[in-house]
């Protein structure tokens, strides 16, 4: 066992979980995650991944911290206004857990750079706020065979789904085409309550930890919808589409990777 005394103490309360183990902890330490978006979902997701002991986390966000972000993005504090979100998130995550290597990507992830950013990751947590990015992330993960946890939040509702490309329904299987741009209120226009985003981002982190360690049953081939107003949680079955433009041609070699 090669966990240091400091790691044993830092992770002691998860190491005593019957479902956890030193082996799971070492697997996490050898794992790399990309968190797309350092905002309302990315803040809790990246925080819990860093705290749990991932080896490396890449944080992708092109925006700067604004005053209107702070009610829902707990990685960013009032004195951080004006800083790059990706870089500020990296500073906070390193302070939380110096054992984790954190790489900021102050860029907007799109179809042009998605595969470059995702390459080498063991899991991607999509906390983006646009459909363009969401589909680009899904397509890149499918092309490279990288497991993905999708999350979204709007108003008091949120949804999460986990994806193992080539084996389970991907985002495009569930939503073959993006809605028309006019019909989509972005977070900039529509309201979001921070605590609801916190729930969704935390579930995304948990699902990523499950995919990395084999813990429990991942939220695959199902979409979890949460209504924060009523606390109704609904699981909606999803299934692979044989003609899916993203995942139907996932190579067998990518699936095993």
């Amino acid at each position, binding site marked *: 066992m090669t*966990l240091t005394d400091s790691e*044993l103490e830092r992770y002691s*309360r998860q*190491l005593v979980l019957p479902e956890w*183990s*030193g*082996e799971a902890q070492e697997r996490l330490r050898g794992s790399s995650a990309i968190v797309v978006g350092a905002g309302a979902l990315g803040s809790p997701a990246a925080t819990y991944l860093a705290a749990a002991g991932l080896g490396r986390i890449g944080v992708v966000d092109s925006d700067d911290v604004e005053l209107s972000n702070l009610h829902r993005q707990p990685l960013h504090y009032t004195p951080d206004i004006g800083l790059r979100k990706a870089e500020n998130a990296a500073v906070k995550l390193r302070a939380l857990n110096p054992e984790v290597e954190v790489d900021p990507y102050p860029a907007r992830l799109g179809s042009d750079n998605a595969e470059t950013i995702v390459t080498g990751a063991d899991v991607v947590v999509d906390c983006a706020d646009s459909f363009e990015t969401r589909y680009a992330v899904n397509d890149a993960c499918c092309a490279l065979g990288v497991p993905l946890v999708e999350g979204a939040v709007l108003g008091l509702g949120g949804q999460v789904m986990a994806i193992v490309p080539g084996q389970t329904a991907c985002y495009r299987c569930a939503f073959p085409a993006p809605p028309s741009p006019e019909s989509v209120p972005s977070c900039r226009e529509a309201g979001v309550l921070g605590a609801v985003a916190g729930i969704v981002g935390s579930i995304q982190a948990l699902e990523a930890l499950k995919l990395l360690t084999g813990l429990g049953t991942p939220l695959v081939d199902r979409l979890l919808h949460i209504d924060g107003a009523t606390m109704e949680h609904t699981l909606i079955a999803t299934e692979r589409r044989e003609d899916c433009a993203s995942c139907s041609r996932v190579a067998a070699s990518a699936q095993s990777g």
Partner: protein
Amino acid sequence: MREMDLTGVPCPMNWVRARLALEEIEDGEPLELVLDPGEPMRSVPLSAREDGHDVTVTGNRVTIVKR
């Protein structure tokens, strides 16, 4: 037999260290622990039983047979 002196190691770090040692031995093999009286002697054998192992306690020594 693998033996660990966990005196001076408080809960739950004593159980963390014991669990990691248990991961390294085969099913059916014993691990002997020396524990402080009080909470460690109450808590560690209980945790080991909850994880499904066979536990015998003699004085301040706890023998866990991995299951």
